[in-house]
């Protein structure tokens, strides 16, 4: 039965009408087969336009609609609503883009009008073949998994929990707190990092809606938006979580007391094999490091493990095993943070050659009053206060041979440390800073920078060619581009501010979660401006520096945003997904399985038919409508709803006629 198609052409003020003869186009449209009516309107997206469309649908009993206007990216949703209110299935609408694809890019009105005719003819050809589609609805399970317990993960968890969601916060180290817990003070306000962070850590621990899973890692994920099953491995702490009171007698007694390099102190301090990363750790439960503990590596610890003797609660249990648990949630937020580039591989900076070349994170632990030196800033080779400290910014950052990107926190963290060093060691200490550009872009940052500029600090604009270890001091050759002079700096302590890089397991982790990475290997957002917290996998969101380097304020904003985005899904009982999923024409399918290999969402499987032939079948809840299976199908059996081969071929035929 022939369709009754209505064509609606928009002037878009002058946007379309100045280059396309709209009246001529409307007359042309009426000549096309199955088109029963053709209307024009100044702004089709306005209330008047909507009324016109709805009334025309009723008057002419249309069963197909073509709207010739702007890109479907602008108003397809609007017009679907209008068509639906007119009494039609919203997917019997086809948009002919005669603005971005025509009027905006052509100068000659005659040519543009002819092209617009072809575009409309194509849209009508497709509209003849459009079918009514239903939007699948998915039941949404409440609750979310947040991966990573740094400030971003903490903020996202608290926001979700306050909105009434059950949150599972999974952190791979023994404590939450992340990088922020390692910092002394924060720029530009010089708030004590611990003082503003620890209350939030306590809030997480005490919140009735948050289940904290520290020393645990996500190992697998199944399902799709609204229905995720997340597998988590709880690593053995070898300390009973319930009975440990966190008194610390075990760590003092440990035979390896003060002999294991502390990761939390960035290698500047020591810990025992049984340890709490720092005094305010949450949860305040000790953990045995199985890679160094004598009992766990050699099966023997002197005459007997001293931690067991020391523990008043009998909490130590060497027989503890890793445990796998499975969580059912509707959404995930990934907040796995960043790594700091190891400058050992950058030989020109002398990090491998001299212990008096340290990183800014190492300096952070030296400045911190609860750090390994109790806040005494020392030159590692001598243990004395340095008389001259030189900062080198952009180590590996903004460097085509290492990391092309800016780390976004290097300049400000160095300026902050310089302020704190001056505060502790007095204004007499010589401070040099080798910078590329000072990027002080945030609120209050420029003012902080100006303040440091007014202090007794030598600024050199350029990149040192080399840090050269000498007998007493280090020397640095630097060409200052502001004075066009070559300087040789002699200094006691060099602080490198290295690039921020994706976690070393970022590739495997992204693959496991089926989310994308950008070229820099950070996790990829769905849109750099308008969907910065979304991934291309619906229901999985990203927060903080796992998406790209961020300072604390940006991480917190990003995390609250991610929580709000997740709540968009979690707050609904049912979630509507796109109807443009793949479907198999089983008569044509030979069961070759090519589509199964191509599907990134494991949505396709082979099913037996009664004659014993196997055919592919698409799980509608798992299919994301990416179309990868359609392209690889050798027989044309795999088709995407709304974009079937015959529908697309009709457009092409109409355009080239």
């Amino acid at each position, binding site marked *: 039965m022939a369709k009754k198609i209505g064509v609606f052409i928009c002037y878009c003020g002058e946007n379309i009408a100045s280059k396309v003869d709209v009246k001529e186009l409307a007359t042309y449209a009426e000549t096309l087969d199955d088109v029963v009516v053709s209307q024009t309107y100044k702004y089709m997206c306005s209330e008047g336009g909507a009324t016109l469309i709805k009334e025309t649908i009723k008057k002419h009993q249309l069963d197909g609609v073509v709207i010739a206007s702007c890109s479907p990216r602008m108003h397809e949703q609007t017009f679907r609503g209008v068509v639906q209110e007119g009494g039609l299935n919203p997917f019997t609408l086809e948009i002919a883009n005669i603005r971005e694809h025509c009027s905006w890019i052509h100068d000659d009105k005659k040519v543009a009008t002819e092209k617009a005719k072809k575009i409309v003819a194509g849209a009508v050809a497709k509209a003849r073949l459009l079918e009514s589609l239903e939007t699948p609805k998915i039941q949404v399970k409440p609750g979310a998994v947040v991966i990573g317990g740094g400030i971003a993960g903490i903020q996202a968890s608290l926001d979700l929990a306050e909105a009434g969601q059950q949150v599972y916060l999974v952190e791979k180290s023994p404590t939450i707190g992340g990088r922020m817990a390692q910092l002394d003070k924060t720029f530009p306000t010089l708030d004590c990092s611990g003082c503003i962070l620890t209350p939030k850590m306590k809030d997480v621990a005490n919140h009735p809606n948050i289940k904290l899973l520290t020393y645990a890692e996500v190992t697998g994920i199944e399902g799709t938006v609204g229905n995720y099953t997340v597998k988590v491995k709880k690593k053995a702490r070898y300390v009973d979580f319930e009975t440990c009171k966190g008194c610390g007698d075990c760590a003092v007694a440990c035979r390896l007391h003060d002999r294991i390099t502390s990761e939390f102190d960035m290698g500047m301090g020591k810990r025992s094999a049984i340890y709490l990363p720092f005094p305010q750790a949450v949860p305040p439960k000790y953990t045995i490091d199985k890679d160094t503990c004598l009992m766990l590596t050699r099966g023997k610890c002197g005459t007997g493990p001293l931690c067991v003797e020391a523990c008043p609660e009998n909490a130590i249990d060497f027989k503890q095993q890793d445990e796998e648990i499975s969580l059912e949630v509707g959404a995930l937020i990934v907040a796995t943070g960043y790594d700091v580039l190891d400058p050992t591989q950058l*030989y*020109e900076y002398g990090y491998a050659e001299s212990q008096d070349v340290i990183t800014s994170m190492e300096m952070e632990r030296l400045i911190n009053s609860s750090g390994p030196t109790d806040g005494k800033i020392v030159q590692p080779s001598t243990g004395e206060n340095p008389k001259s400290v030189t900062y080198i910014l952009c180590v590996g950052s903004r460097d085509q*041979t290492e990391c092309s990107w800016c780390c976004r926190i290097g300049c400000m963290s160095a300026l902050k440390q310089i302020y704190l060093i001056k505060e502790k060691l007095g204004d007499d200490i010589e401070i040099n800073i080798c910078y590329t550009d000072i990027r002080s872009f945030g609120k209050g940052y420029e003012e902080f920078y100006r303040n440091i500029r007014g202090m007794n600090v030598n600024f050199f604009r350029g990149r040192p060619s080399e840090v050269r270890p*000498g007998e007493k001091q280090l020397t640095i050759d630097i060409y200052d581009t502001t004075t066009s002079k070559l300087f040789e700096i002699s200094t006691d302590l060099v602080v490198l501010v290295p690039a921020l890089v994706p976690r070393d397991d970022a590739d495997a982790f992204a693959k496991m979660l089926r989310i994308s990475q950008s070229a820099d290997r950070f996790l990829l957002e769905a849109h750099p401006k308008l969907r910065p917290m979304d991934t291309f996998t619906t229901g999985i969101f990203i927060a903080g520096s796992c998406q790209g380097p961020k300072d604390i304020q940006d991480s917190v904003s990003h995390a609250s945003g991610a929580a709000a985005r997740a709540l968009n899904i979690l707050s609904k009982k049912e979630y509507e997904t796109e109807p443009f999923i793949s479907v198999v024409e089983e008569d044509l399918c030979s069961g070759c399985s090519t589509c199964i290999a191509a599907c990134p969402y494991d949505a396709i499987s082979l099913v037996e038919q009664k004659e014993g032939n196997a055919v592919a079948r698409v799980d509608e809840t798992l299919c994301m409508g990416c179309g990868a299976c359609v392209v690889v199908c050798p027989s044309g059996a795999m088709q995407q709803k709304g974009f079937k081969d015959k529908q697309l071929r009709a457009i092409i035929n109409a355009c080239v006629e």
Partner: protein
Amino acid sequence: MTKVVFYPGCVMPTEQYAYEMSIREVMPKVGIELVDVKGFSCCGTPLKSVNQMVTLTLSARNLALAEQEGHDIFAPCSICHLGLSEAKHVLDDDRSMKERINTFLADENLEYKGTSKLYHTVDLLHDVVTVDAIIKAVKTPLKDMKIATHYGCHLIRPSEIGRPDDAENPQKMETILKALGGQPVYYPEKLDCCGGLLTANLPESALTKTGQKLQRVQEQGFDVFVDACPWCHRQFDAKQQQAAKTVGGEIAMPVLYLTQLLGIAMGIKKEKLGVQLNQSPVEKIQVGGT
């Protein structure tokens, strides 16, 4: 035997004979057969600041001549090696430039194709000959000899066109010298420039760079200073006393080409390696026969 086309350049055949002598002596004994080709010219590098097209054409011409033999190319002079590498980089990357240069070469019935790889002494020994073969060839190990290596700027920079070793942490010479039983030791001035290319415009600055580096090497108690570039060698060896005078100090540092020291460790007579042509106090080196 692996055949390579030997491209001597200008400095070795006119002045730095010892480098060529030691190469011709050592290479066949570690499995490298040197193929000589008639008609080579200057590599073109000295003209670079005057006319880049001429530079490129000269380099391409030499490469095209070598390619005709069907072997890879061995250019022991770091300056030539860089010039030829730059030409290869440009021509292999830019088709229209390659076509243009080839129209110039057509007069001599030559065509640059880009079929041969380019080697320097350091990567030829390290990557092609390999350390295992070198260890087998050693007859008199350089026992406990404390060696300072000098790579020279042209050999390792700029990395983006592909150089025989890393720009910031070159290690191939060290690996070779360890295979000879020697002790190459890191020193902070390792990557400092020889000063050679300043000679034309700022002769005193050139000698200051040379002298400062040798002074620091001497202070740190090295037995021998090893290089692999005729330009660098000229500074450190032939001009050592001039450099000492310029920096106002006494310098007596034996300087050898990498291939000379390799030959000594292989038990080859020093005379055959051209050691008598060196002007630094090489008599201090006890290992090996005359």
